[in-house]
């Protein structure tokens, strides 16, 4: 299955990636190849196979509703590009 160049640009946009002309071309080819392999799997009869959502055959991994100490605020903000000592600071997000 061939992927269109426009689709690659769209997907890159959703992933917030800025691609060069050369990259767009390369990824269009590579992603098309990958989809080609997936297409081969379509030949299998999976009528009675339940979709897998987890690699291990386990269910109900849960915890009790008990609080554990959070990170210190210094640690929380340690990797922030910018902060004011209390909040993360990001470029103004225009809402509405």
């Amino acid at each position: 299955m061939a992927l269109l160049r426009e689709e690659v640009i769209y997907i890159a946009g959703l992933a917030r990636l800025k691609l060069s002309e050369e990259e767009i071309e390369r990824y269009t080819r590579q992603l098309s190849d990958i989809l080609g392999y997936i297409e081969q799997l379509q030949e299998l009869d999976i009528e009675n196979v339940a979709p897998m959502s987890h690699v291990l055959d386990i269910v109900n991994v849960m915890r009790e509703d008990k609080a554990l100490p959070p990170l210190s605020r210094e640690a929380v903000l340690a990797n922030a590009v910018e902060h004011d000592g209390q909040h993360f600071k990001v470029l103004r997000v225009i809402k509405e």
Partner: protein
Amino acid sequence: MDWDIVIGLEVHVQLNTKTKAFCACKVSYGDPPNTHVCPVCLGYPGSLPVLNRAVVDSAIKLGLATHCRIREYNTFARKNYFYPDLPKGYQISQYKDPICYEGYVDIAVRGEQKRIGLTRIHIEEDAGKSMHGEDGTLVDLNRCGTPLLEIVSEPDIHAPEEAYTYLNTLKQIVRYTGISDCNMEEGSMRCDANISIKPKGRKALGTRTELKNMNSFRNVERALKYEAERQRKVLESGAAVTQQTLLWDEQSNQTKAMRSKEDSHDYRYFPEPDLSPLRIDDAWIGRIRSSLPELPDARKKRFTELYGLTEEDAALLSSEKEIADYFENSLQTFNNPRLTGNWVKNEILRILSESGKSAAESPVTPAALAGLLQFLHNNTITPQTAKTVLDEMAATGKAAADIIRDKGLEQISDSSELESLIETILKENPAECERYRGGETKLLAFFIGQVMRGTKGKADQTLTRKILEKKLG
């Protein structure tokens, strides 16, 4: 032309669990920013979410309370989008297989019962909070990961007023189950609406718009009214309704188009591989079922049948679990449902709203109210005195008996005492006596008023009336 309105509502309820949905950070409201945050909240590589069992309990609880089917085998899904208040880049949610589905809520609209179907209830997590300033946006991740239930109704709502009633009924049910306090102003309950209109009787649905940014039930109703009217004007002018998201603007009472970015909302849902599937067996459901309290509908019905309350009083007294509990606890001490119902409805609710307290923390306990009502019932005090005593009870926490004794508030039912007072009053008001005897019998109320004033409201009304009629007759 006549139009049918078709409305579906999406309600988000924030659960009151101690900790977040997928990590052990405390759920808090109003704490200093970024003080309840861990690597899971931050979406750090290598961190793994683990489901909070209490969140599943809450979801099952609400599902059962709204007659839903509970899904046996559940998975979670990632809903992908970029926004700074969600560092992972995706929200953990449920997609095709919500935990609860095919339920309903019965509402009362203009005296008639109407059933609103529920398509689904699913578990998801909340995002953090962003504050937009001049030179940037500040992000607080305390709320990030807080558990939510999203409740999606069928498009069974056909008027803005029905939407309002549905939301109130749903809120009552949620609060009865105790899984959330449902405060729309504080954001623990949020509502988005879908609305379209179509020519009356036509089957196919019209193009719908989505309404957001309503911060109260009344605003949901107002926004829907406005939008139905707007769509009608568009269609009657021969134009078409555009499918879009609109924001309710409280200031101008209008819906306004959201300046959308590029997004046609392509969330690219896929199964969340970090969480194991969730299997809910009958034993689990049974355990939750037996923990459910009597729900508002059933309680209201019982109040009318068992206590002989009117529909209206029963609805009011059963609207909140705490108020209903208060009422019934008071009956334990003094079983006079009509009298107690009236006093809870009129006086206790007033005291609670004045003191800003809930029924469970009422300054006058249910037993204390019962004590007061006993004095009223056996005519020790007049209704007017009872109100004064109740206010004093609320202010001081003293028992009715003590206040009545200390202040000498017992009703005066000693006829000789009343007779001499009445003699004096008649002597002081000869003109009124004349007019009464001349046929102006409504002046009796004037004389009773004088007696009440002379006794500070303690005179036995029936006896007063009897003596007055005898002496004036």
